[in-house]
């Protein structure tokens, strides 16, 4: 009788001959994580990835009960919440993990920005990360509509109408997104397809590229640390960093479970296209700073409609964000770049202040 060890060795050998496990093991042993005073930020990407895995798992589970039509969507979610065992838990975790994932994604983005981890040769890692941010926001926007409740209905009406403010191709884009001229059951079906098929497919591709690039270039050491540190300290990724990652992931899961239990996802009223927009209508928090900015813009700026100015402004802002690695020439040359640090901090402050104002305002003034 073979001992367990020997049998494991045999399986290992069999697989190694076929898929080259030894090479992978060598790669895993070689991977190192720099240790310095900013190392904590290295955990954010992995945390976002973990929350994405939670999203995939709970999303697949939700698919088993959800029905994507205007007549049945609200009722199927109601059934899920009220009748299906642990239905409330799965949906609440999906909703909470979505929010936490966007949050960790933003923290990841800004930590990469402020630590200048986008400098050459990591520009493509930044670009693929930006693509993933766009996909995450797309997931949030399309997923928000799926329960077909009042808030989601009007948020989608406004959101798709903002698309309509894009110059030249706006009305075409709006129609394409809505599957018609109005937000209807056709929009719901379309958003469903985008949410469960198109975006996941794109995510697999972009995330694969992102992780490959992270793997290829290794973790970036911030320029200001690189210059001052005499001896470079590192820890092995396997198992030291991975085990620390796991601690974070387990904590995240515990937080998710607690949030889902104490603040389960709400459903609200079923969407009614012939009802007034409810008082206190709000978008998801990560769109709040844009929503609030649009609210502050006057009806007309220099003869152009306010929201068109807003949309163009956010478009340019997004483009700037995308191109940061190429615009920040000082960092690329290895010099300190205080300007881009300042811009990064200003963007963070702007987002936080506008989000705060959005949640504290009185419904009508």
């Amino acid at each position: 009788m073979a001992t367990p060890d020997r049998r494991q060795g045999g399986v290992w050998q069999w697989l190694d001959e076929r898929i080259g496990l030894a090479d992978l093991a060598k790669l895993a042993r070689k991977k190192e994580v720099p240790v310095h005073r900013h190392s904590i930020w290295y955990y954010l990407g992995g945390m976002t990835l973990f929350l994405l895995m939670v999203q995939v798992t709970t999303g697949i589970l939700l698919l088993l009960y959800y029905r994507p039509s205007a007549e049945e969507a609200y009722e199927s979610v109601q059934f899920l919440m009220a009748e299906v065992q642990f239905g409330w838990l799965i949906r609440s975790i999906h909703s909470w993990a979505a929010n936490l994932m966007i949050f960790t994604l933003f923290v990841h983005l800004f930590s990469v920005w402020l630590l200048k981890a986008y400098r050459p040769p990591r520009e493509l890692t930044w670009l693929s990360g930006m693509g993933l941010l766009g996909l995450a926001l797309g997931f949030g926007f399309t997923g928000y509509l799926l329960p077909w409740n009042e808030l989601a209905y009007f948020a989608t009406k406004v959101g798709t109408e903002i698309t309509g403010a894009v110059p030249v191709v706006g009305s075409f884009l709006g129609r394409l997104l809505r599957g018609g001229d109005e937000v209807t059951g056709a929009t719901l079906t379309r958003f469903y397809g985008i949410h469960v098929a198109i975006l996941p497919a794109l995510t697999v591709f972009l995330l694969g590229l992102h992780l490959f690039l992270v793997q290829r270039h290794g973790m970036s050491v911030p320029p200001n640390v690189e210059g001052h540190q005499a001896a470079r300290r590192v820890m092995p990724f396997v198992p030291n960093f991975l085990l620390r990652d796991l601690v974070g992931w387990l904590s995240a899961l515990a937080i998710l479970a607690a949030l889902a239990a104490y603040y389960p996802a709400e459903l609200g009223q079923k969407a009614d296209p012939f009802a007034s927009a409810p008082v206190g209508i709000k978008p998801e928090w990560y769109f709040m700073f844009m929503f609030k900015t649009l609210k502050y813009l006057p009806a007309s700026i220099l003869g152009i409609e306010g929201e068109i100015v807003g949309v163009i402004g956010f478009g340019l802002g997004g483009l700037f964000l995308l191109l940061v690695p190429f615009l920040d020439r000082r960092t690329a040359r290895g010099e300190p770049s205080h300007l881009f640090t300042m811009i990064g901090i200003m963007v963070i402050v702007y987002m936080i202040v506008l989000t705060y104002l959005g949640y504290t305002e009185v419904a009508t003034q």
Partner: protein
Amino acid sequence: MTEQVLARDASRRKFINWFLATSAGAFFLSVLYPIARYLIPPQAGESTAASVTLPIKLADVKPNSGQIFKFGNRPAILIRTPAGELRAFSAVCTHLNCTVQYRSDLTHIWCACHNGHFDLNGQNIAGPPPRPLDQYVVNVRGEQIVISKGA
């Protein structure tokens, strides 16, 4: 002699490359075209309703109140001013398409989405809406209220 052969080969190679590239291009276009057309939703027939008789009795419409009704496939709002006059407007906010409501505490029309205000003539008076609401014609025939598009 060899130079001539080389030159001829090069131009042949150029021709074949051009031929392959255009064929591949045409192939992808013929695949992408139906997909692109498929994604564009078909044009739905515009609602031709020029007038609608409301399922509400005149007596049930109190002064200083408003209610949403269906006009064709879009929402519209019927309001009765504090003075008792009936007026009807499109309920689609001219800002970002939300559905407006009548606020009896403000005695005018208000949109909850971005805090847009319209007066009793549908004029945009505050907030982001860029245009007034479209006004409809209200006719009262006995107890019935009939709304129609302006002449």
